């Protein structure tokens, strides 16, 4: 009898303990928010990242695996500003998970917390793949990561109130360490200030604003439109008047156009990791910017 009571008590304890041990399932649309959620959530969150750094986040398919993961998510962390418009709405509509629908606490958009650049004055598809909310590639400026971290930690605490203090302390630690890291990157990147560059896709607006890089032209004739030989020749002609130091592209993009330009203009073609996992060095958010700065500095040589 005593034994029975003991095991009954044990079972009861397990039953009570089980929900407390549950972690928040976070569905991050892109690797940078997955990495940030891990920094802020520690072992209280389980992060699934829907895309990898070698995928173009504009063009992802609403794969069955994404629907299955969104079904079990407690929090969806998206970039917003229509970056994921081609797939996330469909995934959320099919997932049958009311917790993570837009407008619910389980849906978080990073661009809501960041001053947006390049808001188009003319909304017309003839302008290419334009985003009405502004350029969505905010993660290329580490100060934006910090801006998103605060509201995201608040959201984690809201969804998992029992661990609010834990998220708060992790946020504090992250914010301090990140601030120091940003200062360090800015110091390292001082030689980049004012450097004229070319970009393949207009994906580095925030990086340019942060480091004072000067974008002379983009290889894509319109955002999201594949570079054409005619447009590349025009850009090449521009370089006669305005020489640049390098042409940069994101790891997920084909190197064809960049290499074409690099050979003819005798400049460096630099592939930036663009997000966590974009190359071997960009293992986490810190590595992402360490490597971005290092590659840019190398490109200056």
């Amino acid at each position, binding site marked *: 009898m005593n034994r029975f009571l003991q095991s009954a008590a044990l079972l009861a304890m397990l039953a009570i303990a089980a929900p407390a041990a549950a972690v928040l399932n976070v569905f991050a649309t892109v690797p940078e928010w997955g990495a940030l959620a891990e920094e802020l959530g520690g072992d209280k969150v389980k992060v699934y990242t829907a*895309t*990898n750094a*070698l*995928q173009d986040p504009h*063009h*992802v*398919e*609403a*794969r*069955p*695996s994404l*629907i*299955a*993961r969104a*079904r*079990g998510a407690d929090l969806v962390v998206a970039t917003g500003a*229509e970056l994921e*418009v*081609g*797939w*996330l*709405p*469909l995934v959320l*509509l*099919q*997932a*049958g*998970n*009311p917790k993570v*629908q837009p407008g619910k*606490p389980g849906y978080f958009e990073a661009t*809501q917390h960041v*001053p947006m650049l390049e*808001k188009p004055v003319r909304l017309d*598809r003839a302008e*290419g*793949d334009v985003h009405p909310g502004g350029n969505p590639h905010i993660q290329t400026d580490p100060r934006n990561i*910090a*801006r998103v971290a*605060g*509201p995201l*930690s*608040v*959201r*984690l*605490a*809201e969804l998992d*109130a029992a661990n*609010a*203090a834990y*998220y*708060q302390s992790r*946020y*504090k630690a992250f*914010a301090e360490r990140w601030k120091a890291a940003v200062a360090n990157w800015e110091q390292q990147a001082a030689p980049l200030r004012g450097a004229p560059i070319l970009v393949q896709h207009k994906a580095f607006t925030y990086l340019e604003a942060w480091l004072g890089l000067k974008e002379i032209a983009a290889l894509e004739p319109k955002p*999201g*439109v*594949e570079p054409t030989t005619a447009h590349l020749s025009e850009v090449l002609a521009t370089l006669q008047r305005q020489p640049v130091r390098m042409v940069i592209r994101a790891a*997920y993009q*084909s190197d064809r156009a960049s290499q074409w330009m690099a050979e003819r203009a005798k400049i460096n073609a630099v592939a930036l990791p663009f997000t966590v996992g974009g190359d071997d060095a960009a293992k986490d958010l810190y590595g992402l910017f360490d490597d971005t700065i290092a590659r840019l500095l190398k490109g200056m040589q």
Partner: protein
Amino acid sequence: MSRSLLVRSALALALLSAADVEAASDADLAQIRDEIRQLKESYEARIRALEQRLQDAEGKVAAPAPASASVTAAAAVPPEPVTAAAPASPASGIGAFNPAISVVLQGVYANLSQGPKRYAIAGFVPSGDIAPAKRGFSIAESELGLSANVDDKVYGNLIFSLTPDNTISVEEAYGVLTALPEGLTPKFGRFKSGIGYLNDQHQHVWDFYDAPLPYQAFLGGQFTSDGLQLKWIAPTDTFVELGAEVGDGANFPGAERNRNGIGDVAAYVHAGGDVGASNSWRAGLSWLGLRPQGRQYVQADTKGNEAQIGFSGRSQLAIADFVWKYAPNGNAQDTNFKLQAEYFWRRENGDLTYDSDGALGLTRTSGYSSRQNGWYAEGVYQFMPSWRVGARYDRLDPGRLDYGANGAYLASPSYDPQRYSLMLDYTPSEFSRFRVQWQQSRTRPDFTDNQLFIQYILSLGAHGAHKY
């Protein structure tokens, strides 16, 4: 700030600080004092304005913070200063709640070696709008879609189909309950059934101009029903979806019925997942059951007469579907490959009425049963950005047909209809596609139809998302 004011104030300060300057007259001093007072007032006004702006900005930043008590601890986290005003103000005014509008425009140039009126699939009941486009230039079906969240619980979608012969039809019109937990999504209204792989995809997202032969032969193109659908996604990391539908069963392989209750029943299971970063797949099994009463069609009898035939009985269809997609590292932008195949089995039992309209004066009803099947397989390869090539093979097996006593007039076919298709398409952006498709269609034993289609598909308006 005016430059002269700066200069003068600097001068004034310098003069004041030089306490030992005695040369200044009283009049000068009064003037300087007056200027300093003006300066102070001007600055105070500016500072007040700036303070007000700061307060406003702080108010905006604080507003989105959650209000629930449990969060107050976390809200105390020092927020990172936001340098610019927070979220953009949403659209306002009378148009703010307009639904998302999307339009699909399509057109085709068709070059057919046989007239489309002679199109038929030997051994299979002709049904629906399955013939190829008319010869020469024509617009194909245009689509107008309106969708929005109705409220916090329902999402609504209406899709009109505008056909080249100036008719408008409701292709889909349904509501979806979005607030149910546990992976449940009920849908109600008119919708394309979730059976198979291609059935619930709109024609403009297909990889070929026309539907595969088994879709034409067994579903009249695509199966749409007015009714209810319930889908459930299993709480697993591998995608598992169970679906069930009931409907009015008025469309082929059903028939208009003047009855209460349920006309068609469908059930299906789909599973899918990723294999590494580069591969993904989806597979499914579906079943569709109907009881058509007096389903009419016209068929040539053994004497060459076009006889009206009516079928009443039980029709059951099973579909196995499989899709596998490959893209290097999951990045489909440069190159990708898609393999897709579906297999159909159909069984029909019941009564067949030969010459059901009495035009031949030979009206007779007899038992009927059939077991038929068909399949198609296609591969589409994107070999460089924007450019894809594809190949498809379709084949039908008329199987066993038992006409009973009507066997005197109706022959059991022994011909396997088949078709070979090749296509090349160019997709300059997500919103436009141009396609050339050539195919050899041998759906009748008496001739071969060589078909060439040049097609355009344009999408306007709201950014559509494509199903997997």
